[in-house]
């Protein structure tokens, strides 16, 4: 099971801060990946928490949106932990895939590479692997299908309950 703690009703911000170090981007603590700055944490059960932290970084490098917080990338990849819990072969594919990514990235591993370009160069080497394809293929749905991210892109989603757009700007373009 993966739990995303997001302020209430999971861990409080104080508890998160206690568990993680202040200032770090993503902190691994026990079986959890924690973002102390943003008060959320994600507990893994099948995958190593380090693996999950790398998956989150990898997700951001595949679909980088600087205005989208890490939390949504974490939600987008948490399904891999659930899947790994049910399917040993799947778990091996993910763990091996991440290990390979780290190996190709040199001493500090994938997350140790400071620039996105450096990490993307490593991803390009594994682009054709089933590992990369399953991460990317899942992500294109699990990231963009979160209603919470839609407003960040200016997509308004469901509109029937609001009476459609007939009185809400379907033809409000002014600059033409």
């Amino acid at each position, binding site marked *: 099971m993966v739990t995303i703690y997001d302020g209430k009703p999971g861990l409080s911000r104080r508890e998160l801060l206690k568990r993680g170090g202040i200032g770090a981007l993503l902190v691994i603590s026990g079986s959890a990946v924690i973002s102390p700055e943003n008060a959320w944490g994600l507990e893994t059960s099948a995958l190593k928490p380090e693996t999950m932290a790398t998956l989150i970084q990898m997700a951001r490098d595949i679909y980088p949106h600087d205005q989208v917080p890490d939390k949504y990338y974490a939600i987008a990849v948490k399904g891999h932990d659930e899947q790994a819990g049910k399917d040993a072969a799947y778990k091996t594919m993910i763990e091996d895939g991440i290990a390979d990514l780290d190996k190709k990235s040199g001493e500090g591993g994938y997350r140790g590479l400071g620039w996105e370009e450096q990490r993307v160069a490593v991803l390009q080497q594994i682009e054709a692997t089933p590992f990369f394809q399953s991460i990317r293929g899942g992500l294109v749905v699990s990231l963009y299908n979160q209603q919470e991210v839609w407003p960040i892109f200016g997509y308004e989603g469901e509109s029937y309950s609001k009476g459609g757009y007939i009185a809400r700007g379907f*033809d409000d373009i002014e600059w033409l």
Partner: protein
Amino acid sequence: MAASFDLKNDNVVVIIGSGAGGGTLGNELAQKGVDVVILEAGARHEYEDFINDEWGSFSQLAWTDKRTTSGDWRVSKDFPNLPAWIVKSVGGSTTHWAGASLRFQEHEFKTLSTYGKVEGANLLDWPVTLAEMEPYYAKAEAKMGVTGTNNWPRLPGNNNFKVLKAGADKLGYKECHTGNMAINSVERDDRNSCQQTGFCFQGCKWGAKWSTLYTEIPKGEATGHLEVRPNAMAIKINHDAAGKVTGVVYADKDGKLQEQKARVVAVAGNSIESPRLLLNSESAKFPHGLANSSGQVGKNYMRHTTGSVYAIFDRPVHMYRGTTMAGIIRDEARHDPSRGFVGGYEFETLSLGLPFMAAFLNPGGWGRSFTTALDHYDHMAGLWIVGEDMPRAENRITLHKDEKDAHGMPIADVHFDDHPNDTAMRNHAYKQATALYDAVGATRSFPTPPYPSTHNLGTNRMSEKAEDGVVNQHGQAHDIKNLFVSDGSQFTTGAAENPTLTIVSLAIRQAEYIASQMSAKTI
């Protein structure tokens, strides 16, 4: 009240599929007092049940049973098990469709005589002309409430249309308007007018857009002559020693096999399932499948030459507000070989929500080039290209050699290679559309590859001569008198226009023919 017929009743017309073709044929026959059973593989969801959410709606309505693909089309690489985006639900793809309803042009019924022989293409003239179709087009437009006909006003233009129109004016295109849409622009037929919700592809929750689900089907049921049996997947059509069809074997909602006896069978499962069913109905008498003495069943699969162009502007557009297909440019629909291809194409506005845009803008794409496009989603405008593609014998539906579905029926493989004419047309359209958006100040454009096929055509084609095709000018099998094809698979060629108005018109015409042949006791 909806009828309920006995399985052994062999006086009924059994229709397979309840979409544009099957739903219309069912109602038209019921109105004439003919008893009809429609077998529909999907479940029945009424329009209140529709979901304003792209993936949510897709799982509710789309046909997701496994299919395989082959050929050089990009869909085969990006969506190997989803060659087509069509529906498995009562109402068929008329739940998902956008509503664009255009008549074919005269020459599009006569492509072989007009274009001449095109290498690598299996062109043929239809055994029907525009003049013969006109009265049926008029009936279909009246039935469906097509805007811009019968004095119904066109829909108001949304933001996406206004961008299109501004570009069309700059390029000098003359025929640009908000289309001929089977969407109520005023309340009529006891249905709402369009509220510009922008989820036309997800099923119209207002019922403003025509769908057989809440027009033809309840009207047919009200006569007491129509029964729609949902969750009934037809597997095989049976015949007698004389070669007449006698009934349809189907898997019911519990997966149990049943046989509905029939006086006449009409196949309307859309252009992948219809040939699949005919091929799967092979027997000692018909070893290559039913109605297949010509060998044409499953061949000449067409999907229209399509593609999209999305463009980003420095100011907001909000293209997703309002009707999904909100306007059209028709100037390129003419046949003008000086452009480097035969046939023509239409531009129609199109919008996808963020989830589908991510999936379809550049399937497989990733990294900043891809994501910076989505970053400006609310500054995007978009259009869809729909043009005539070339029928080719090699583009075809076949039964998979090994893989079977839950009922033990071989799954369909869809093979498609682009003809050079398709590629030339698509490239021309990409160039024109990019220029159009540039003229309005686009800062970046995206020539977007074709989606899984929404228009599936041609796999049981109509022909004058029995050796050239599967059915005659009434959709009646050349080989078997009481077997009909009633969907887009009868199309001899595809034309530039969206197919549904023609499917509906053919179904109205076919209903007259079937009823008259039944009373004359020839079937």
